[in-house]
């Protein structure tokens, strides 16, 4: 089965997000880039499908020329082909992104991609909708947030969790499925995989940017995100103070032999 996986290049942010002076982007001068965590699992899932059932894995991304790096990362995990929908670096809205993916699926024929995978949501913009828009445009069913995927015949059985219960969807192929981290544990790229990815040709298409009716004005870091903890002490010597704090919060177990009032203060 030929599987298409859609991924997105996002900044690799650590403990702190810094916004650029013009308020339009996350400052990435000090950070690398990666794909969203769910998407790495989507690629792993697709590679496992191809290992089990044969067929190819095509990884597609929409982004600036540098997004080819993320395609090569995914090729190193075992994907076979990379497709870059190259942009000039502007942010694309979900409607335009979905339209570009749908057009690319048409152009990449004869591969028809019975299964299209994506992450449940992008780590940065978190729009929760590109895959669903792609599914509607292609007239396919769509399941999202999937933690277990089983293919049999022309059907996909997709399982997810919702409010502590499991939801199971059985849908016919061709289909669009978004997955969540936890569906699998992505492998580390092998050295031969890396070398192959480095040399691989990447198909480049250039879709047309469209204005989005949801227009970003500015990004900011929410207030109150920069306080500093009161230091209770160092090492085991801090345990009595820590115990007091836990008592104050009311989370200590009720003491057994001191009358049960659990006084820690």
């Amino acid at each position: 089965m030929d599987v298409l996986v859609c991924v997105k290049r996002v900044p690799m942010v650590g403990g702190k997000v810094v916004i650029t002076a013009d308020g339009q982007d996350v400052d990435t001068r000090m950070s690398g880039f990666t794909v969203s965590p769910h998407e790495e699992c989507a690629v792993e899932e697709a590679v496992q499908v191809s290992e089990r059932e044969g067929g190819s894995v095509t990884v597609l991304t929409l982004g600036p020329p540098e997004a080819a790096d993320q395609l090569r990362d995914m090729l190193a995990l075992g994907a076979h082909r990379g497709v870059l929908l190259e942009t000039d670096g502007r942010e694309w809205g979900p409607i335009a992104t979905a339209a570009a993916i749908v057009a690319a699926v048409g152009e990449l024929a004869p591969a028809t991609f019975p299964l299209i995978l994506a992450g449940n949501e992008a780590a940065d913009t978190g729009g929760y909708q590109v895959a669903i828009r792609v599914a509607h445009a292609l007239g396919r069913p769509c399941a999202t947030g999937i933690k277990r995927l089983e293919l049999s015949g022309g059907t996909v059985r997709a399982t997810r969790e919702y409010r502590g219960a499991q939801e199971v969807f059985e849908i016919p192929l061709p289909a669009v499925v978004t997955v969540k981290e936890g569906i699998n544990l992505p492998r580390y790229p092998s050295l031969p995989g890396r070398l192959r990815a480095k040399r691989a040709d990447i198909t480049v298409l250039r879709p047309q940017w469209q204005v989005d009716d949801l227009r970003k004005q500015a990004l900011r870091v929410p207030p109150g995100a920069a306080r500093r903890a009161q230091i209770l002490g160092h090492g085991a010597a801090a345990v009595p103070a820590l115990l007091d704090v836990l008592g104050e919060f009311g989370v200590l177990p009720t003491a057994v032999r001191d009358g049960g009032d659990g006084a820690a203060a």
Partner: protein
Amino acid sequence: MSSPAGAGAGGAGGAGLGGGARGGVICLAERDGATIAEASLKAVEFAASLAGPATGVAAVVFPQLGGAGTPELDASVLADCGATDVYLVQAADLNAYAPAAWARCLEQLVVSGGASAVVAAATDHGSEVLAHLGAMTGLPVAANCISAQPAGLSSWQLVRQRWAGSVLEDAVLEASCALLTVATDAVPSPSASSPSASSPSASSPSASSPAGVDGRPATHVVTPVLSQADLLVRATESAEQSSGMSLATARVVVGGGRGVGGPDGFAALEELAALLGGVVGVSRVVTSQGWRPHRQQVGQTGTKISPELYLACGISGAIQHMAGCLSARHIVAVNTDADAPIIAHAEYAVIGDLNEVVPALIAAIRARST
């Protein structure tokens, strides 16, 4: 009946959003047994804040898995949150969660009632249904909003979350009908606002304009027109998981990160969590190393927690992790690095090695209770 989503046979009210409710706001209200899920109640309050004093706020309730066997809904909680109308959806084939079918029903209500906005809590169901609605109508969807204000005809000024809440975006939405999901863990709880607030504040239409008699919302039964394609994706079974206490609802979460050092280090954290009546949660590095299963992961791509206490041990505090514990009442960090980002998020911190501090804490708690 001109409306495709008109009142069904047992309908108690008319089609559309009721009299005087043109340009009203529709809100998806997810059931939780006989009541409405907390997140959806917040979404209804959010929806009510968007509606003008003369416009309706329609809460739309779908059948739960099990269909006719589900308990009768107590709609008064929806009125308390500002709903003027409650639409109970009934359809022969619609007895389980079906995202496209739910969206189709909302679409038909939007068309018949001329709604100016559709709101849902940014849960997995709410986000999915609104994305389907956006795809069906070609309208944009603004996900994870924390505020929205009308800014002229079919224009809205929004604040929405990016990076799971670590970044806020100011945005303008131009749409004949605004499709919004609400980041309900970032807006105040319904219980925090008094339903009986009688001050003549212009910003509380919810308290001052009950539609029905006795403050009860007008209830309508609607039957959507659904195609086979709308019903292709349906939850076919739903089994409760029996995995003990839920990370999402635990009162105490003891967190472990890279500083735990390996899979063996979690025994002490489990012991401490058990003593405090809580559970262990972990950071992403722990699950991607395979030290612990993903279901224990706290964060943007794991579980969002809201405990009384989050005791984060050996966790640096990357924004993706902090996004999962923004709702913790108290955060206490144990970390060897006084400059770790977690220190900027915690209320208290112990600087030191968790492999020394945690056993000493366990011993102190045990000594205290004997």
